[in-house]
């Protein structure tokens, strides 16, 4: 699955996107963030406050308890500050 990061999350992780083979135990956005935290200190830092992070599944906003299912891409990012 393709995972994308934006803004300070991208900077902390050190990349804008990556392909990740997710374990079967990852069913929701919350599961995904908990899994990512185990991938190294940069991820631990990036996801230290998951409540501050927003998500989109296949380019549509999604809650943390949303099921990932057969999604092609998941984006994780801070609250938006455009306009």
């Amino acid at each position, binding site marked *: 699955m393709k995972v*994308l990061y*934006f*803004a*300070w999350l*991208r900077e902390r992780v050190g990349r804008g996107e990556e392909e990740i083979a997710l374990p079967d135990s990852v069913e929701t956005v919350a599961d995904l963030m908990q899994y990512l935290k185990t991938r190294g200190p940069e991820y631990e830092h990036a996801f230290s406050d998951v409540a501050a992070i927003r998500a*989109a599944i296949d*380019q*549509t*906003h999604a809650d943390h308890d949303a099921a990932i299912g057969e999604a092609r891409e998941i*984006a994780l*990012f*801070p*609250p*938006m*500050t*455009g*306009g």
Partner: protein
Amino acid sequence: MTIPTRIAIQQHAIDLSAETTALTSAIDSTDIGAVVTFTGHCRSEDDRLAALELEHYAGMAETEIGRIAADAIARWPVLGLSAIHRVGRIAPGETIVAVIAVSRHRQAAFDAAQYLMDFLKTRAPFWKKEHFADGTEGDWVDARASDDEAVTRWQATG
């Protein structure tokens, strides 16, 4: 009737006059009574900032603004809508975003323009980073609670 809707994300400067003419020309009606335009600009924050850098989620940004515009069209009798957002490095004084709403009577255009801006700020995937006047890189701009409250107000009056 299809409502002309233009959504654009671009690096280059926004030509508000050309955008307004393009939108009103695309509307197949002789009953345009109101055109509301809003432009949001980069502040220097008392000369502290050299620029803002706008990052976006390409693909979703266009889609999400499209969803917001469709909601506005469902909610008010507008004749046309445009939303243009810049990305990249933007200097103080320059336009970051423009919305244009056209209707027969002014209230629908005012409301639709404000609705577009309120939701665009909190739902469209853009992020601002500060660059300081002394040449150093600043931090990412924090989201404002007042922007979330603006959206909640629209939802309450749904």
